[in-house]
């Protein structure tokens, strides 16, 4: 479980996050949604510690992350997996080396055990046999799947996904969403997905948090989001023409 209490963050005096308090449950796919520039990526980066908060605390299973020193943070981060917007695979390493990276750094497994674990993870993301390819030889969807395999290789307790569907076609996006949702259940992880893709919200969102202009504007489930009378959230959810038409039909 991840608990965020009274987080504030500003850049050059310009507030980006205002007093955000929210909790994310274990074994669930938690979604942070909001318009571009609303502060959701900053919130995610504060939660994982890539950005320092101005005030407030972040707790991982009751442990205060914000008050930890660098070494303690490094230790707790070994239980993190993260899928970046651009996948952030290591260019100089091939698929197998990318996935094996954490095993090489933090375990004393034998080469055979590592190889078996890498094969298992690649098979899990439907990339079996692609071990020798380099990131430059992969499509956008494949890169994301390698990044997921890399994230789950050490059975993480927490999975963070920053815009996992950006730049992907709808079918591949659905496949990535399903994969995130499945592995969340499989590994009983606390998963945080940062997105503005409403399809993801409806497909995998078990808990949804809406951030508006740096404020926690709304939280609920993906079913509740369609029934809300929150005007800003409605504007966001029913922004596209096709969804507006569907809502009109539904209202009729």
């Amino acid at each position: 479980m991840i608990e965020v209490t009274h987080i504030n963050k500003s850049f050059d005096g310009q507030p980006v996050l205002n007093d955000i308090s929210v909790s994310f449950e274990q074994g669930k796919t938690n979604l942070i949604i909001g318009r571009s520039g609303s502060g959701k990526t900053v919130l995610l980066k504060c939660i994982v510690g890539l950005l320092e908060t101005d005030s407030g605390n972040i707790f991982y299973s009751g442990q205060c992350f914000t008050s930890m020193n660098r070494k303690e943070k490094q230790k707790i981060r070994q239980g993190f997996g993260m899928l970046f917007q651009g996948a952030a695979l290591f260019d100089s390493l091939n698929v197998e080396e990318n996935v094996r990276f954490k095993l090489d750094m933090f375990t004393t497994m034998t080469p055979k055990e590592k190889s078996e674990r890498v094969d298992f993870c690649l098979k899990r993301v439907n990339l079996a046999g692609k071990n020798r390819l380099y990131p430059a030889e992969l499509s956008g969807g494949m890169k994301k799947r390698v990044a997921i395999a890399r994230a789950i290789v050490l059975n993480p307790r927490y999975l963070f996904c920053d815009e996992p569907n950006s730049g992907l076609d709808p079918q591949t996006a659905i496949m990535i969403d399903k994969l995130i949702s499945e592995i969340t259940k499989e590994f009983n992880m606390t998963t945080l997905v940062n997105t503005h893709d409403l399809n993801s919200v409806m497909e995998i969102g078990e808990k949804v948090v809406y951030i508006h202009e740096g404020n926690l504007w709304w939280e609920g489930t993906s079913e509740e989001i369609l029934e809300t009378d929150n005007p800003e959230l409605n504007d966001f959810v029913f922004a596209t023409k096709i969804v507006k038409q569907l809502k009109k039909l539904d209202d009729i």
Partner: protein
Amino acid sequence: MNLLEHIGKYTLLVKRSFSRPESHKVYYKRLVTEMELLGINSTGIVAIISFFMGAVITIQTAYNTESPLFPAYLIGLAARDAIILEFSSTIVALILAGKVGSNIASEIGTMRVTEQIDALEIMGVNSAAYLILPKIMALIILAPFLSMLSMVVGVIGGWIAGTTVGVVTTPDYIYGIQYVFIPYYIVYSLIKSVVFAFIITTVSSYHGYYTRGGALEVGRSSTLAVVHSSVVILLFNLILTQLLLS
């Protein structure tokens, strides 16, 4: 950001780079790779430039000492001292700052803007140590060898050019390079090469590590890495010369 802030951030980054490695095996592998990329792959350029610089130094010395008062062997002596004292350490370091420094800054800078450094941090890896320490160690280990290579090739270049052009005979040149030879000059040159290797790798890594933005900023970091490394090398050349030769 002012100079003191840069120095402070640079010092903290270097301190972080010298942290205990998470996996000695992985770091050793990276060290070997970096030795090849930064050191072995620089031998060609160092050899070519040293050969021609040795040749030019010899010919210029010969044409500027065309006097019966100067014995011919002084051409070899002057070429030897110029190469050992200054060229093989300082000038080679400036060349390496251009080749290796820009390479380091652009590599680490690209990793920064494509979130690969963030990915390392999220995994619980000390990104500064993982990326920078092997580079520092690799160039520190190989810089003295590059310097010695430069000395040998430079002196050979001077001999070939001098005898081909006819400004000095082989016996005079050989006598000159052996005349009043002070072995400490080689030690002095090697000490300088190690210090310069540290400067090149750390200053360039600093610029790469703190790159913000996109491709344009990576290019800018790369340029700044070369410029700042070169300036710091020249400054430390002065300090080390005073300290070691006074």
